[in-house]
């Protein structure tokens, strides 16, 4: 038998689900209330987790129990963190707004360096290499020896990848020489239209992905609402 806490939790879940589903009637105060409750609960929990796992575990505990060297090293993030507060506290922000700039500069610089380095070594180079490998003559010959159908499939894939890559890049070509009319040459325009077709297919795939990701959430909520209704009926019958 369910205890009172479980019943209350199920009722709350049912009410919030109904409030979210009320969006099909348009934007309304119930929907906004549900969204604010969810955002607030998530923000509260996040603040607690960040405090425990970052501020307490990575700053407070090492500072209290660490060696002198560790404490000195911890001074850097502590000072940068305190300076960042100057941007947030209103009485300070009017006069000392510049004090948070070094922290932001540090964060931006590190973030950009990590992102660019990772993108080059983890995405651009491996993906370029993978695209080149598709057209590797040695691999094509080896595939041809194993089975003709695999060769057809491989060549077909290679052609689609090559055509898709080139025409999609061409679709974003808007260059014109000085003195010329700002219009793409006819052959580039034709290839760009093929590229737009590839882009449209890609966007369609992404839309389908979003739909497939959203459906399980709807199913789970419907299931939860039905279970709650069944539970209520059971209680009433008893």
């Amino acid at each position, binding site marked *: 038998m369910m205890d009172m806490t479980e019943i209350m939790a199920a009722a709350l879940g049912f009410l919030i689900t109904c409030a979210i589903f009320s969006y099909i009637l348009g934007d309304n105060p119930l929907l906004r209330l549900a969204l604010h409750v969810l955002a607030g609960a998530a923000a509260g929990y996040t603040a607690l987790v960040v405090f425990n796992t970052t501020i307490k575990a990575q700053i407070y505990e090492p500072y209290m129990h660490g060696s002198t060297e560790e404490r000195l090293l911890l001074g850097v993030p502590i000072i940068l963190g305190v300076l960042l507060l100057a941007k947030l506290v209103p009485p300070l922000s009017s006069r000392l707004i510049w004090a948070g700039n070094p922290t932001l500069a540090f964060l931006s610089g590190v973030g950009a360096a990590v992102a660019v380095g990772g993108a080059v070594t983890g995405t651009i180079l491996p993906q370029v290499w993978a695209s080149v490998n598709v057209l590797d003559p040695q691999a094509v010959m080896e595939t041809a020896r194993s089975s003709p159908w695999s060769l057809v499939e491989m060549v077909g894939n290679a052609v689609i990848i090559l055509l898709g890559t080139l025409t999609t890049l061409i679709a974003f070509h808007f260059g014109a020489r000085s003195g010329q009319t700002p219009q793409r040459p006819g052959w580039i325009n034709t290839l760009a239209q093929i590229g737009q077709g590839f882009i449209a297919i890609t966007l369609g795939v992404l839309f389908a992905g979003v739909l497939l990701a959203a*459906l399980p959430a709807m199913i789970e909520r419907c299931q939860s609402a039905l279970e709650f209704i069944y539970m209520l009926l059971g209680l009433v019958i008893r």
Partner: protein
Amino acid sequence: MMDNPQDQQDDTPQKKEAVPGLEDVLPLNAAMFESDEILPVPFSVDISEPQYKHIRLLERMLAQENEGTPPPAQPPKAEYHPDSFQRFLRLAIGVILILTISINILYSNRSPSAVLAVPGEITQTRMILRGLSSESMVLVAFDYEPGFSAEMEPLAAAVFQDILTTQAVPVILSTSPLGTLQAARLMQKIQPPTARQPIYLGYLPGGAAGLMSLTNSLRNTFPLDVDGESPWLPDSANPKLQAINSIADFAAVIVLSADAENARNWLEQVQPALNKTPFIFALSAQAAPLIRPYLSGNQLQGMIGGVIGAHAYQEPKQPNAMLQMTWDGFAAGVWVAVAFIVCGSGISLVLLSDPARKKRRKQRQKRRLP
């Protein structure tokens, strides 16, 4: 008196003009304003019948101006409100989807359906996960928000079923503050009492920079676990973690993610440091297409995408209960969505090919242009 109009075929200027002497006052062709009434003219002017009709028209217009009679009332035109139509469509689609899914949930037999073909990457994932042993330590990242738990939990359950069966130890972390909570919730649902307890390292802040730190120095990045204890000490609850010094020492690294950007961060920051450690993604359906190129580029050893991927991954003999609860409603929902898309596309095509609509659309576009 007026001559017979049939006989007036000459081309003198008076004959061409609607009102003699007043050029361009009225259109020349007044035959559209039919009038059977021919009144006597008090003076004798040589005019044609069309010219006479123009005179009559002018007289009537002047008379109407003097009378000030209101124009005849026209029936009110039905107004088109795009907002109300959109609202109706949203309501109809929502109700149909909810009803279809609810009926499927109520009448589902929850028996596993056959999978026609299992993709290569899923077979590879199965082989890697079922090849783990009780000595293996597996790093699992729960990088999805609670909003995606309905899709990601059946997926994670399918993966964890194999990990727990092999008695491997999952080491759990997350780059999302809510990830550890998601992991604990899943474990509560699926973990058998005999299975090994996972190690919760907790939240990894910093996004891409945090992942880089994890790659460079695993132990310094997580000095404490979620309970505030150091998991790396010899007398800790899991002494096997002593053998783990870097991320490449794990038997496999599995990322459960609903966000393509987050998955890309793992690929860019962590994958180059993994050496031969298998790297597996279990992704939401919305992130899987964007990460698939990395699979083709051999940067990933296995991948499962969405509920469909999880359905292909599970063994028909050992169905995943969480997945079966979702699957029937999911299949029905997909069919309804496809029907909506096809019908909507068909109606749009028909409306687009209507010439009157085309003309109106062009006029609207012209009005929008400065």
